[in-house]
C-alpha cells in the first residue's frame, strides 16, 4: 500500500510542478483567486485557467489512458514491446482524425471526439490480426514489425495528403508527435469519461486476461472464452488510445515504458498493475511535458517528442533482453 502512496505523491509533485513552471511566473495567491474569484482581465488568472489547467488535465487523461492501453496490450499479447505507438494504433487514430477533418473541413470538439475511435479500432484490429497478436504465442518481432509496417504505410499516406492539400508543416508535425498545447480546443470532459470507461472495463476483465496468459487451453479449462477476452481487450485499447489521441495527438512509447515499472510496484496482479499504470502514465507524460517546456525555454519541445526520446532507449533495453524466436 505504501508503494501506491509513493506513486500518488510523485503524481502530486509533477502536477504542482506543471502548474507552477512556465514562461510566466505566478504569485501563489493567484492560484486560489483564479479558482474562487476568476477575473478574465487578470493575465495571471487567464494563464492558469486557459493554458495551464487544460494542459494538465489533457496530460492526466492521455497519460493515464496510454498507461492502461499499454498494460492491456502487453498482458494480452504477452509481448513486452507492445505499445499503442509502436503498433500503429496511435497512428490509425491520428490518421482518421487528419483525414476526417480534411474531408469535412471542420475540426471542432465533436468531430475530434468521433473520429479517433474508429481509427484506433481499425488499426488495432489490423495490427493484431496481421501480427498474430491475438494468438498470444508469437514472438515479439512479428508484432513489432507489423506495427512498423502499419506506421510506415500511414506515414506515407499522410505525407501524400499533406502535400496534395498544400497544408502547412504543422499538420504534419501534429501527426508525427502529439503535444498537450492544444488542450483548450479538445473535448476534455468527454474524453475523460471515455478513458475512465475504458479503464473500468479493463479492471473488469483483468482476471480473465490473467487467466488467458496461462495459455489458451488451460484458460478454456478455467471457463474463459479466449475470443471474448481478446475482443474485450481490443475494446479497451480502442477506447483508451482513441481518447488519448483526441486530447493530445499520437504519443509514442508511453505505453511501452509504463507497464514494466507498474509491475515493479504492483507485482504480478493485473488489477493493481492497471491502477498503477494509469497513475504512472499520467506522471511520466506530465513530467515529460514540463521538462519539454524547461529545456528550450521560451520555446518548447512537444511532449510526444520527449516521450519518444525517453522511450527509444527503453525500447532498445527491452529488445536486447527478449528472446525473439520464442514467445516472450
Amino acid at each position: 500500500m505504501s508503494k501506491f502512496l509513493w506513486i500518488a505523491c510523485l503524481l502530486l509533485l509533477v502536477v504542482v510542478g506543471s502548474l507552477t513552471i512556465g514562461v510566466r511566473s505566478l504569485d501563489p495567491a493567484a492560484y486560489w483567486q483564479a479558482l474562487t474569484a476568476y477575473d478574465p482581465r487578470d493575465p495571471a488568472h487567464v494563464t492558469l485557467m486557459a493554458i495551464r489547467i487544460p494542459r494538465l488535465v489533457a496530460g492526466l487523461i492521455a497519460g493515464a489512458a496510454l498507461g492502461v492501453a499499454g498494460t492491456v496490450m502487453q498482458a494480452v499479447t504477452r509481448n513486452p514491446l507492445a505499445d499503442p505507438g509502436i503498433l500503429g494504433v496511435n497512428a490509425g487514430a491520428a490518421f482518421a482524425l487528419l483525414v476526417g477533418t480534411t474531408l469535412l473541413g471542420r475540426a471542432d470538439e465533436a468531430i475530434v471526439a468521433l473520429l479517433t475511435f474508429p481509427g484506433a479500432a481499425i488499426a488495432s484490429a489490423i495490427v493484431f490480426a496481421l501480427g498474430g497478436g491475438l494468438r498470444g504465442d508469437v514472438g515479439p518481432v512479428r508484432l513489432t514489425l507489423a506495427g512498423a509496417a502499419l506506421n510506415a504505410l500511414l506515414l506515407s499516406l499522410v505525407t501524400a495528403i499533406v502535400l496534395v492539400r498544400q497544408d502547412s508543416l504543422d499538420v504534419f508535425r501534429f501527426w508525427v508527435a502529439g503535444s498537450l498545447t492544444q488542450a483548450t480546443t479538445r473535448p476534455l470532459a468527454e474524453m475523460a469519461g471515455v478513458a475512465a470507461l475504458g479503464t473500468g472495463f479493463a479492471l473488469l476483465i483483468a482476471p480473465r486476461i490473467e487467466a488467458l496468459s496461462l495459455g489458451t487451453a488451460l484458460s478454456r479449462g478455467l471457463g474463459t472464452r479466449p475470443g471474448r477476452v481478446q475482443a474485450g481487450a481490443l475494446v479497451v485499447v480502442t477506447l483508451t488510445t482513441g481518447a488519448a489521441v483526441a486530447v493530445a495527438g499520437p504519443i509514442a512509447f508511453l505505453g511501452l515504458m509504463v507497464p514494466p515499472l507498474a509491475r515493479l510496484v504492483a507485482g504480478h496482479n493485473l488489477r493493481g498493475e492497471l491502477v498503477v499504470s494509469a497513475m504512472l502514465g499520467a506522471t511520466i507524460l506530465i513530467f515529460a511535458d514540463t521538462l519539454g517546456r524547461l529545456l528550450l525555454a521560451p520555446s518548447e519541445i512537444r511532449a510526444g517528442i520527449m516521450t519518444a526520446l525517453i522511450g527509444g532507449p527503453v525500447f532498445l533495453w527491452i529488445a536486447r533482453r527478449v528472446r525473439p524466436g520464442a514467445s516472450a
Partner: protein
Amino acid sequence: MIRRSVLPALLLAAVVASLLIGQVPMSLAMLWQGLVTGEGPGALILDTIRGPRVLTAIGAGAVLGLSGVIFQTLFRNPLAAPDVMGFTSGAGLAIVGAIAFGLTVPMPLVAAAGGLAAAVLVAALAWRRGHRTPPLTLILVGLGVGFFTSALSTFLMTLLPYSEAAEAQRWLTGSLAARDWTHVAQVWGIGVVLVAAALAQAGRLEVLELGHDLAAGLGIRVERARWALSATGVLLAAAGVAVAGPVPFVALMSGPLGVRVTGATGVAARMLSGAGAGALVLLLADLAARAALPGIQLPAGVMTGILGAPYLLWRLSREMERGKL
C-alpha cells in the same frame, strides 16, 4: 535465356516510360531526336530534368537493392534490410543534423557517417558477451535504433526555421525531384566502386551463407568477412540515401523481387538481380508518384512506403506460416 532478359527489358521499358511521361509529355520521336542529335525540346527536358532524375533513380535504387541483398543473405533472413534495421534512418538523421547545424560537408559523406554510426550502434547494442547474436535480435534492436533516430530527426526539425524544416522534411520522405548531374555523378561514381567491392566479396558471402562453422572450416575468416560485407552494405545504402533520401522499403523489396524475376541462384547473380530490381522499383515508384495525381508531384518515398508496407506485412505472414517467427 529468355528469363535472363526479362529484368533488363522491364528496366528499359521503365526508363523509356519515365523519360516520356511528365508534366510536359514527350513523344517517342522527340525522345529519339533528343537522344541522338542532342537538339530540340526533347534534349532540353532530358538534359535539365528527366535525364538526371532517371539516372539518379537507377543509381540509388541499384545501390539500395544490392545493400538489401547483402544483409538478407548475410543474416539469412528476408526481413534483414538496411531500411528495417535503422541504417537508412541513421543516414537521414545525419542529413537533417547537417542541415540544422549548417555543416558544409558534402551530403554523401554525412549520409555515410550517419549510416555507419547507426550500424555500429545496432551491432554494439545487440552484442552480448559469449552469445552469437540471433538475426531477429539484430532486427529488433535495429527497429529500436530506427525509432530513436526518427524521433531525433523530428526533434531537430522542430528547432529549425520553417523553410529549412520543410527542406528537411522533403529529405526525410525520400524524393528524386530536382536532381542534377552532380547527383548522378555522385551516386554512379561511388556506386560503381562499391558494387565492384560487393561483387568481389560474393564468393565469401556464398560460403558464409552455408553457416559460420562450415565457412570457418573452409578457411574463411568469418568475423572479418562479416564486418567487411556489413561495411560494404551500409556504405551502399548510404550512397543511395545521400542522393534520394531514406526512401523506405526499396532495399527490403528488391532482393526477393529480383530473384523472383530472374530466378538467380548464385550470390553474385542475386546481387545483380537485386540491384536491377532496386532500380526498377525506385524508377516505377517515382513515375507513379509523379503521374498518379495530375498537377501534383508526390515524392518517390511516399510511393515506396505505400507499396513496401503491405509487402512487409505479407512477408511477415509468410514467415509466420513457415514457423520462423
